[in-house]
């Protein structure tokens, strides 16, 4: 990215609002997390250009838009607290500002913390560049009882102050107008400092005769704070190498009792606080808004656990299990596939004289009658409802609170609340979640999370199918839930004791709880469904081909026969052997097979419970196992496999014994 000063005149300098084709350059600056990027999107669009600042690895995001008749380039700079900050990102922004890299500066500030942010404002004012203050998050400030006299602040600073809510687009048009107006004249410099610092800055400023991209006052203020970059600029910019300015600076600094940088910072903050005191009023918050109240309720154990159970009951059991797995699957399986699509395919392929070829498409394991039917009629409505429910929770801001809620429990399992991210994602896809475990802090946490994902976290389709299967058998569902949850807790706690290492620490800034937005929820649901369908359909078809080939060659029957003693020991009918074979290809394929079997009336409630528990705990699908190999290494992944397989069948065996005695 080229950031030089010798540019073609921008339309504001031409004094005409007509389109000139020249670029007005607007830079958004401000502290981190004040909504700069949200405002950036409003001023430009979703498509942006990202480039490194010359000579650094710091990224500057830029986009283009129009203000009035002007083309503008908008730059979203990394967050900064002060012009004297030390990090590389903040030094880059400071360099950019001192180079006069923007025609107009827009300082974005958080309306909830105006006093803290005005200190940077005063430094920006010193630059003498056109400046506009965008006070963002006015809605959140209002809910906290904070009121801002924007007109008063504007009068005191001599620059436009625009209250706004960037995410909703409130105030964006006013900001556009203010930017255009500001581009015509630089901000005036109000008195900021007391006599000591103020006179030092004025004296050094008077000693500077060079030409600079910004008002020399900013350089003078930085120089007396001992800023090396300002010193270099002054040495380069002055004919005498800055000697006169340095002498004046030393004279004044010798009169300071404290370190000059500290003194300047204190006086600047005092000026900022005085400014804020005149324009910000804090009213007694008479009541917390619904978001804050609900946010507290869902994160506290006493109220959060019942809320979690309610969410699971309404969202997973009623919506995904009953509606998705019941109503929708019934319709797709029966009237659509059973009565129309499958008979149509049957007639279509009836002309093929070779049974082996015909059965590849429309046989017991046919591509169309099994692969497509499983993917479209059973899995798709279930994952569709699951992803809709998941996206609703995600967009509401519930997941970070869930992380906070389970943090204490997770610590006992050697995990932290941060592990909620892979665990929650595991309910969508365990393979992806296994990859995400690499974001956990310690190796111990990564190994434990990988093991628990492989063992006790069913993926979206598997969970949905099981919920659909058991929606009408609450006792079976309760036993399945307790078995899987119990495994998660017991194995996690044991694993935490066996594996050496420090317990992780979890800190997270909670975003506000909010109403899910229809557009976001629809987009995320459709994106997930598209991802799932594009991934699942080819694999389902491939699995059908394998099963067809296995049946044709007799290999499938031989493996199924080999598994018969095992399924017999679990008290399951011989037909379930193929379910475990299905499950090896994909968890959801196995679950869909179980669904099929139950619909044929081949499973008693006890058998259904035992099969569902065993299948959930059973070996992860091929994709997940490959990801385990990649993420945790061959030795660890094989060790997990060696543990999980006998554990799953052992748990199924024990459960069968217990249930047959008790029920």
């Amino acid at each position, binding site marked *: *990215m080229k950031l030089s000063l010798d540019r073609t005149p921008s339309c504001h300098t031409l004094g005409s609002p007509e389109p000139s084709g020249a670029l007005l350059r607007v830079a958004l600056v401000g502290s981190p*997390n004040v909504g700069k*990027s*949200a405002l*950036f*999107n409003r001023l430009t669009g*979703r*498509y*942006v*250009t*990202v*480039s*490194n600042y*010359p000579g650094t690895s710091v*990224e500057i*995001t830029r986009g283009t838009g129009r203000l009035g008749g002007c083309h503008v380039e908008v730059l979203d700079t990394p967050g900064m607290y002060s012009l004297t900050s030390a990090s590389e990102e903040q030094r880059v922004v400071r360099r950019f500002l001192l180079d006069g890299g923007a025609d107009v500066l827009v300082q974005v500030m958080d309306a909830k913390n105006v006093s803290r942010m005005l200190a940077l404002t005063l430094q920006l004012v010193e630059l003498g560049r056109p400046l506009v203050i965008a006070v963002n998050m006015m809605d959140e400030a209002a809910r906290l009882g904070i009121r801002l006299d924007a007109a008063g602040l504007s009068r005191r600073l001599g620059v436009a102050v625009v209250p706004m809510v960037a995410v*909703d*687009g409130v105030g964006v048009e006013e900001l556009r107008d203010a930017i255009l107006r500001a581009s015509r004249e630089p901000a005036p410099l109000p008195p900021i400092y007391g006599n000591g610092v103020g006179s030092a800055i004025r004296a050094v400023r008077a000693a500077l005769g060079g030409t600079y991209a910004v008002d020399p006052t900013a350089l003078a203020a930085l120089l007396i704070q001992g800023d090396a970059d300002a010193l270099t600029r002054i040495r380069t910019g002055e004919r005498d190498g800055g000697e006169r300015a340095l002498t004046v600076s030393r004279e004044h600094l010798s009169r300071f009792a404290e370190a000059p940088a500290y003194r300047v910072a204190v006086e600047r903050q005092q000026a900022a606080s005085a400014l804020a005191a005149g324009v910000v009023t804090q009213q007694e918050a008479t009541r917390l808004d*619904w*978001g804050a109240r609900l946010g507290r309720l869902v994160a506290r154990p006493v109220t959060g656990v019942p809320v979690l159970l309610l969410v699971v009951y309404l969202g997973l059991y009623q919506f995904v299990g009953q509606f998705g797995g019941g109503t929708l699957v019934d319709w797709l399986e029966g009237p659509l596939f059973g009565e129309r699509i499958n008979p149509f395919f049957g007639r279509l392929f009836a002309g093929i004289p070779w049974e082996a070829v015909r059965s590849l498409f429309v046989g017991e394991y046919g591509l169309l009658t099994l692969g497509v039917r499983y993917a479209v009629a059973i899995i798709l409505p279930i994952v569709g409802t699951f992803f809709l429910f998941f*996206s609703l929770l*995600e*967009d509401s*801001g519930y*997941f*970070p609170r869930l992380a906070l809620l389970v943090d204490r429990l997770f610590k006992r399992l050697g995990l932290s609340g*941060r592990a909620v*991210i892979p665990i929650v*994602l595991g309910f969508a896809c365990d393979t*992806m979640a296994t*990859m*995400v475990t*690499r*974001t956990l802090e310690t190796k111990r946490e990564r190994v434990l999370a990988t093991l628990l994902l492989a063992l006790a976290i069913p993926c979206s389709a598997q969970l949905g199918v099981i919920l659909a299967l058991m929606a009408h058998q609450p006792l079976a569902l309760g036993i399945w839930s307790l078995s899987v949850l119990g495994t998660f807790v017991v194995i996690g706690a044991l694993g935490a004791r066996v594996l050496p290492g420090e317990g992780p620490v979890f800190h*997270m*800034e909670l*975003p*506000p709880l*909010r*109403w899910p*937005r*229809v*557009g976001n929820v*629809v*987009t*995320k649901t*459709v*994106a*997930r469904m*598209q*991802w799932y369908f*594009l991934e699942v359909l080819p694999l389902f078809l491939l699995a059908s081909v394998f099963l067809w080939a296995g049946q044709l060659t007799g290999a499938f029957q031989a493996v199924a026969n080999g598994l018969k003693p095992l399924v017999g020991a679990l008290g399951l009918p011989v037909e379930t052997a193929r379910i475990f074979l299905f499950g090896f290809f994909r968890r959801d394929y196995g679950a869909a097979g179980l669904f099929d079997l139950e619909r044929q009336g081949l499973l008693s409630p006890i058998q259904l419970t035992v099969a569902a528990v065993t299948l959930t705990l059973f070996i992860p699908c091929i994709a997940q196992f490959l990801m385990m190999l*990649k993420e945790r290494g061959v030795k660890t992944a094989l060790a997990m496999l060696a543990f999980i397989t006998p554990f799953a069948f052992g748990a199924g065996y024990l459960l069968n014994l217990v249930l047959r005695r008790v029920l």
Partner: protein
Amino acid sequence: MSEGTRRTMVCGFCAREFVEDKAQTACGACVLNGGCRWLRCPHCGYENPEPPRWMHNLMSLVQPVLARRPHG
């Protein structure tokens, strides 16, 4: 100097904004890098589904209508 056009998005978990490019940097170690339909948030590591382009185009038509409705 690397340069490219990318979309920005808001993370579904931590609600912070990031540019796709940064997500890809965070995904650098993955064999599917650039080939999957997920964007990892560089701030918290959460995997966000990448909105299909056709969906984005459709929503850009619908969203102005939805945005006029009151919400909390």
